[in-house]
């Protein structure tokens, strides 16, 4: 079973961000066989995200979302454009994820805004963010301004992006491929680096 996790940072209800996330999800599910979808609505986790910034640990619902994202075979992430970039809420979620959580994970990036003049936000904000997180961003990003929801072109881009994500989810194996993940605290807890090795590394120049 392939796990697809959809992270959406819309604030209103209904939100165009959530609507776009749903269309991307439906198209990706259609392109994949046997897929399990988990939705992460960041609005519901906003308080817990702030708490984690201050305490360093996630409350249970947020912990479940972080675990789901870290274990996902593919991600769809959608943010509204606020002040020429992703929203602070969206960024906070990726700020608190443990280093290495997205290593090698295929990601479809998408954004919504009131006007098409924000469309490059995918290229100047989202793509660099996920490149830094060592995720694999699919070539087609999907940007939707208010007008796009009324027109016929959005569907074509949604289908193309979903197809690209599906192809990567099928082909990139984080365990067996050249994409190796950084060791996390959980990895160390499960199989700790032996102390002789730590001693050797400590004094290695």
């Amino acid at each position, binding site marked *: 079973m392939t796990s697809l996790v959809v992270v959406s940072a819309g604030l209103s209800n209904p939100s165009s961000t959530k609507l776009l996330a749903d269309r991307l999800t439906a198209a990706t599910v259609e392109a994949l066989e046997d897929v399990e979808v988990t939705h992460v609505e960041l609005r519901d986790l906003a308080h817990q995200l702030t*708490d984690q910034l201050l305490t360093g*640990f996630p409350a249970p619902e947020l912990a479940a979302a972080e675990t789901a994202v870290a274990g996902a075979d593919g991600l769809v992430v959608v943010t509204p454009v606020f002040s020429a970039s992703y929203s602070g809420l969206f960024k906070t979620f990726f700020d608190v994820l443990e280093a290495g959580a997205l290593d090698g994970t295929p990601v479809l990036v998408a954004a919504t805004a009131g006007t098409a003049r924000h469309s490059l936000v995918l290229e100047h904000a989202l793509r660099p963010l996920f490149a830094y997180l060592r995720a694999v961003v699919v070539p087609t990003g999907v940007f939707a301004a208010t007008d796009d929801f009324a027109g016929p072109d959005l569907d074509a881009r949604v289908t193309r992006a979903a197809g690209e994500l599906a192809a990567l989810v099928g082909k990139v194996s984080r365990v067996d491929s050249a994409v190796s993940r950084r060791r996390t*605290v959980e990895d160390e807890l499960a199989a700790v680096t032996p102390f002789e090795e*730590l001693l050797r590394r*400590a004094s290695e120049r």
Partner: protein
Amino acid sequence: MQFGIFSVGDVTADPTTGRTPTEHERIKATIEIAQKAEDIGLDVFATGEHHNPPFIASNPTATLAYIGARTERIVLSTATTLITTTDPVLIAEDYAKIQHLTDGRVDLMMGRGNTGPVYPWFGKDIRQGINLAVENYALLRRLWSEDVVSWEGRFRTPLQGYTSTPRPLDGVPPFVWHGSIRSPEIAEQAAYYGDGFFHNHIFWPAGHTQQMVDLYRRRFEHYGHGAYDEAIVGLGGQFFMRRNSQDAVDEFRPYFDNAPVYGHGPSLEDFTEATPLTVGSPQQVLERTLGFRDYVGHYQRQLFLVDHAGLPLKTVLEQLDLLGEILPDLRAGMAEGRPANVPDAPTHASLVAAAGGAKDSTVYAAADDVTGRSDLEEVQA
């Protein structure tokens, strides 16, 4: 089973009055709190180490030596000693000296416990935190166990024929704990040496503490120091007590809401549910504390944080009075169902006994240079 308190020495405004104690008041209060800890029958007082405001916890060795001179029985410890930025040569000398001054009433807890800006003040880099902890501690052990050390490493200047003085009291170095919240490498380090492992416990959910302690116990057994349940475990804890639990909640809430570490974040209710913080009646604190064993097993040392977040000295002393009242029940409760093979926390006496008795470890030098001759004359000679 040992019970005690640990202090980080923060100088924090009392949010209910807006008044911040002076450094002098806070330093003197720390001494009074330590003496009170002995008076109510606690076993351990531990001080933190910080080198920046708002803390008065620099130079912990002076603080501990002073407390040692004014107490009779209580074990002095650290929470934590900064093994990353403190020269292990100084740690070896300082704590061996306190051992002698207090007749063995001292042990240490190693920690990395620094923020990024602190490291460069000591010529170090936080990104090397684990490596510093590993190399520095390996050297510290040699300085205590070998009379003459020649050593070369990565982080400090080499040593040739160096003897750390005074030698450890009775030939037995202080017992060492290693504290870490979230670094499995440190649990591994503690296990490798058969040292104690202390989990701060108070800032994170119990499930995480459980994982770290479990790793330490498994590796302690792996390295042949004893069985899984014979490893030496310490935990932090945090409470605020009043006889009536609602009074405790009402009084503590402003301190919680403005506390330096978790203030302005989760609610008191969420945090008490997620972490071991207990705000309520003495009975509630007793029951919660006895419940720690359910997820870490029978353990050796329980330290509580009581003097922080701007709580006035008077309130802290009242908290200790209440702790003194439940202490007999805590001891009785922890003794219940404790298997015979679970050891107590090592003390100087038990370590001396294990070493086959006390021995004079003095290094008697053949000659000294306290002869009135100047350094220059020595060099020219």
